[in-house]
């Protein structure tokens, strides 16, 4: 089993080295690993993950697998560490002083440890996108918002940037609404549109994984529904990890759900099973609304 995984990684890196298409590369890897795992391939694996803010331990020995091109939801009462866990994946905690990671989060297929000291957080963030709780477009034009990630990567060609921006906006299901006003400020959009713009911004750089931190908590129900549709559709091309405080949302959009409580992973399962037949008492109490 171990040897097989290594083979898969080798295939994947060989493909990437020869500038193979991302989709093809992933397909090869996925098909390889699917054979191994007997389900969707593993995209990332947290092992023995501890996280500390100064002296306070916020995450306690998390072990969890994120499946490739599936939606994994993190649920739990506020303060349970779900956002903290999410932010480990793109090293956002590095921006806060006195924070410390222990354990590992391996990203596949190339098997790098995202939280290792010698792995550059900037590289990690370029591979793993993030969408925040409150829509936070830059006070720049709609076009420049989406183009920013490309420009940071050093992309110069105007034609290429335009092409990528359009594609990202289409993928984020907002192209039709903004195609005639690409030079308007991103702040001129409604809340729901702003959030889809932020998703387009994250998609433009073609990330392997997308992190959503309660992306609909600041939106009305209609805008929320559109974002949820979008997340479901994104599953086709990118691995999604989403934090939500809304259990219905987790049930609607996710394939896998993890229930966290007080910094620990209590239960992780296929969404339908976790909601209908929770294995642990705490999970059951939470999803039936007894606390949280």
């Amino acid at each position, binding site marked *: 089993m171990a040897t097989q995984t290594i083979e898969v990684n080798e295939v994947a890196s060989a493909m990437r080295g020869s500038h193979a298409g991302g989709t093809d590369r992933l397909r090869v890897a996925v098909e390889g690993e699917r054979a191994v795992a007997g389900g969707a391939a593993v995209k990332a694996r947290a092992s023995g993950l501890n996280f500390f803010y100064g002296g306070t331990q916020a995450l306690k020995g998390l072990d969890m697998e994120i499946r490739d091109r599936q939606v994994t939801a993190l649920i739990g009462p506020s303060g349970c560490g779900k956002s903290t866990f999410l932010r480990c994946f*793109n090293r*956002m905690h590095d*921006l806060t*002083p006195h924070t410390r990671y222990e354990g590992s989060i391996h990203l596949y297929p190339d098997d790098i440890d995202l939280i290792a000291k010698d792995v550059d957080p*900037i*590289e990690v*963030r*370029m591979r793993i*996108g*993030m969408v*925040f709780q*409150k829509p*936070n*477009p*830059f*006070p720049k034009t709609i076009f420049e918002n989406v183009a*920013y*990630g490309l420009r*940071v*990567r050093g992309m110069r060609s105007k034609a290429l940037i335009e092409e990528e921006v359009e594609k990202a906006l289409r993928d984020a299901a907002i192209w039709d609404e903004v195609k005639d006003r690409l030079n308007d400020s991103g*702040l001129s959009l409604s809340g729901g549109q702003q959030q889809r713009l*932020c998703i387009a*911004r*994250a998609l433009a*750089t073609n990330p392997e994984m997308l992190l959503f931190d309660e992306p609909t908590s600041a939106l009305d129900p209609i805008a929320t529904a559109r974002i949820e549709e979008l997340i479901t559709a994104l599953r086709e091309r990118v691995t999604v990890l989403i934090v939500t405080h809304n259990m219905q949302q987790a049930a609607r959009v996710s394939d896998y759900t993890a229930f966290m409580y007080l910094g620990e992973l209590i239960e992780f399962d296929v969404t339908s099973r976790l909601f209908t037949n929770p294995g642990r008492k705490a999970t059951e109490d939470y999803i039936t609304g007894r606390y949280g």
Partner: protein
Amino acid sequence: MATVAQDPALQAIRAGVGRRKLFDAIFVIIGLLVMIAALAVLCVLFLDLVVQGAPRLNWDFLTSYASRKAENAGILAAWVGTSLIMVVTACVAMPVGVAAAVYLEEYAPKNWFTAIIEINVTNLAGVPSIIYGLLALGLFVYKFNLGQSIAAAGLTLALLILPIVIVATREAVRAVPRAIREAAYALGATRWEVTAHHVLPYSMGGVLTGMIIGLSRAIGETAPIITIGALSFIAFLPSPPVTAEFPFLSFAWLKDAFTAMPIQMFNWVSRPDPAFRVNAAAAGATLLGMTLLMNGIAIWLRFRFRKRINW
């Protein structure tokens, strides 16, 4: 109802309320009067300068050099000197001030070393301007051998307004929400990219406001320039910054002697001859007009930028 009104306790309360309300009303009147008095000083001052200086407030005044005869004297050398000094001051204070502010807000770790820098900035804001003049006299004029030059004056005033620029920039930078920084970091931007592409452009309004307020302070500063030893009687202009030959720019003016608006005004105020008082008033009106204009622009900019970006 009638019986209640006659209740002595209630009547006492009502009388007390009435008296206390009267105090309130009196205070409102006093407060308004004090405020009006303070603002009246500003108006009276400006109007008086304009009225007193009116005979000299004409084109000749702007295009003549200082003179022993009051009616021939003008402020040509003074306003040219002031303008050139402001160029030096702006060119030094803006980059250094903004850079220092960005360092303190975006980069500096929270430790004793940063605390020392911060204490120094606050402390410098409270050092009297004449002390900067002594610093300039000892350091720029004699130790750096800049002499009594435009460069020495410009550098001195740059140091003087540095705290103003730093504080204004820090405030503007702090107003950029954390969420915007996080969005940029999450796309893989480095700290400098976040600063240069986002934080600074979005806080430019506040930075500019601070810069203009700093310059408006510098333009009226007299004491430090007197201490350097600016001459008040100057009948020539500094070397021109633009030349006919390649490379078309000359920096010889940096080392030239100069006079400045407030120095010229001080010189005229100090003379017993009332004819020069008229010149002083005219120079004062010009100087005050410039300062108020700059502050007006700064206030307007602040108002506009506050309205424009609504996070």
